[in-house]
């Protein structure tokens, strides 16, 4: 047995005990992260009365079909204009809008900061980074005033635009661009590539996986928005899924079903992008 252990140690480079401890920690983390999701999925198959009497449920119930059917046929609002499909549409428009525009904007701003000779480049970069200290919530009142003066109240644009300035994206792309060897730019310059060609032919193809990661993160930010859409829209047509959860009631079977449905699109997105996502985060 002892010789087995030492053989194992020689191959794996760790003792069985330390491997076991590492696994225990990982499993604990996994349980911690997955438990709320399993709780929600299980609860979405119970009746509202079970949930209200007994709290959230760990085991599956028998009301799944009814709950999900109820969510799909759900109508609410002043003139029944809040529907699941409508909310899904709004959520997608906003999340994709935020994701696409954030990715493009932070990509271009980082490109300018790294590859162009700008005056006060360092200052501009740190100024952008400082905006991280001011999340959207801290500038609601001013931003509201700006949106009103632009006449954008009750539009998708009003929800999307203030969320675009994600300094994290700029930072992320900047760090990535800085790892590109400067000879690459010089070779491209000698090959007759100007700033646009260099962007299109060299930088973009080499940044796709990073851009995928930023896209996913920005999508989540857009998808999970709650407070700001509530402030800036009074129109029932602009309801998103996340806001809809409040409408339908949280401690109800259909409410739980809606939560599950709300989780799905970001989940599938992550599933699709996960290879790129992890690749770009691990570098």
């Amino acid at each position: 047995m002892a010789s087995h252990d030492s053989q194992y140690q020689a191959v794996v480079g760790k003792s069985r005990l330390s491997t076991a401890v590492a696994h225990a920690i990982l499993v604990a983390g996994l349980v911690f992260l997955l438990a709320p999701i399993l709780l929600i999925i299980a609860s979405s198959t119970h009746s509202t009365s079970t949930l209200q009497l007994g709290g959230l449920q760990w085991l599956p119930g028998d009301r799944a079909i009814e709950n999900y059917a109820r969510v799909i046929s759900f109508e609410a609002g002043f003139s029944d204009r809040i529907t699941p499909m409508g909310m899904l549409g709004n959520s997608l428009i906003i999340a994709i809008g935020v994701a696409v525009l954030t990715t493009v904007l932070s990509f271009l701003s980082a490109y300018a900061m790294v590859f162009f000779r700008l005056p006060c480049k360092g200052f501009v970069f740190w100024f952008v980074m400082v905006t991280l200290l001011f999340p959207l919530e801290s500038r609601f009142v001013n931003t509201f005033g700006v949106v009103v003066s632009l006449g954008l109240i009750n539009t998708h644009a009003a929800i999307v635009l203030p969320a675009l300035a994600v300094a994290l994206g700029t930072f992320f792309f900047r760090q990535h661009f800085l790892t590109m060897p400067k000879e690459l730019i010089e070779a491209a310059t000698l090959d007759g590539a100007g700033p646009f060609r260099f962007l299109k032919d060299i930088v973009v193809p080499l940044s796709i996986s990073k851009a995928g990661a930023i896209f996913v993160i920005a999508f989540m930010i857009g998808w999970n928005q709650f407070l700001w859409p509530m402030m800036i829209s009074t129109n029932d047509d602009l309801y998103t899924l996340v806001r809809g959860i409040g409408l339908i009631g949280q401690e109800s079977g259909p409410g739980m079903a809606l939560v599950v449905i709300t989780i799905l699109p970001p989940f599938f997105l992550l599933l699709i992008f996960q290879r790129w996502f992890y690749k770009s985060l691990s570098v």
Partner: protein
Amino acid sequence: MSKVQLSNVTKTYPNGAEAVRGVDMEVESGEFIVFVGPSGCGKSTLLRMVAGLESVTDGQIQIDDRLINDVSPADRDVAMVFQNYALYPHMTVHGNMSYGLKNRGMPKQEINAKVVEAAKMLKIEDFLDRQPNQLSGGQRQRVAMGRAIVREPKVFLFDEPLSNLDAKLRVQMRIEIKRLQRRMNVTSIYVTHDQTEAMTLADRLAVINEGKIEQMGAPIELYNNPATLFVASFIGSPQINLLPAMFDGQYLSSGDLKLEGFVDLPQSKELVLGIRPDELRLSDDGQFPMRVDIVEQHGSDNLIYGAILGAEQESDEETEFCFKTSQDMLPELESNLTLGFDVDRALVFHKDTGERLR
């Protein structure tokens, strides 16, 4: 076929550092010029100024009598091969080689013909569809050269292209570069810190030190007739033997050693005597008693390193000489040899200015 002319070219960085201080040079059409010097001497900066990757602070750079100081790198009609290859990692070999031509709006068929022709010349035609990360270092360097060749530039610029290769491959590629340059007859400027590379490749060699050309000429001319102490010690492998000395009108003396046969040297000035390792010979009436420290067997010849007994010492270290001899000479370690040299072949330098006196 193009000539390159540098007149009083200067590079001063914004922080005041002077990288290149007034370089004048004329590179003839089809000539292979090598810039050689220690790292930080400004040789790469000078090359990059010709390429247009560094601005020119002062002076003029001309290619075929056309002033190119303010011409963009792409319009200078030069092609450069980088040390780290700088291949586009996401493009195939074909893509890498054709990119510059595509940007110039050349028709696709013509590009293809050129790429295939260059690939054949470099023996990489089987790899055209591969990506750089599927190639070995040597193959990558060939692709980098292919990218330069297809452009049919007026001037080839090489920035230490072989430094990332292993020793054997380096020799192979060195010969190939020379062959290629002969065949294409394109004016070339090549930067290296490797003096063997410099000696073997160059039609003419420019030894650069602290931003200035120390001496320029055919490699063998620089070896035989170095103008300064710096050139003498930089060119030649193994390095030239140097001995601190003074002249008293009759003898050139160093410590207890008194060397005869020197005339017309400045008296009571610090001098340096230089003797190439292959100029030394074993001789009973020789001038230098040597204690053998190390014997290196290189195959066809042996290098014997040892201290010259009685010679003046720089700091605490004994003055070491290297003696190049045939493979059958294998003295015992710690044994003593007596070495002689031909006074006519010895070089004498001024210690402070480095200027050669004879």
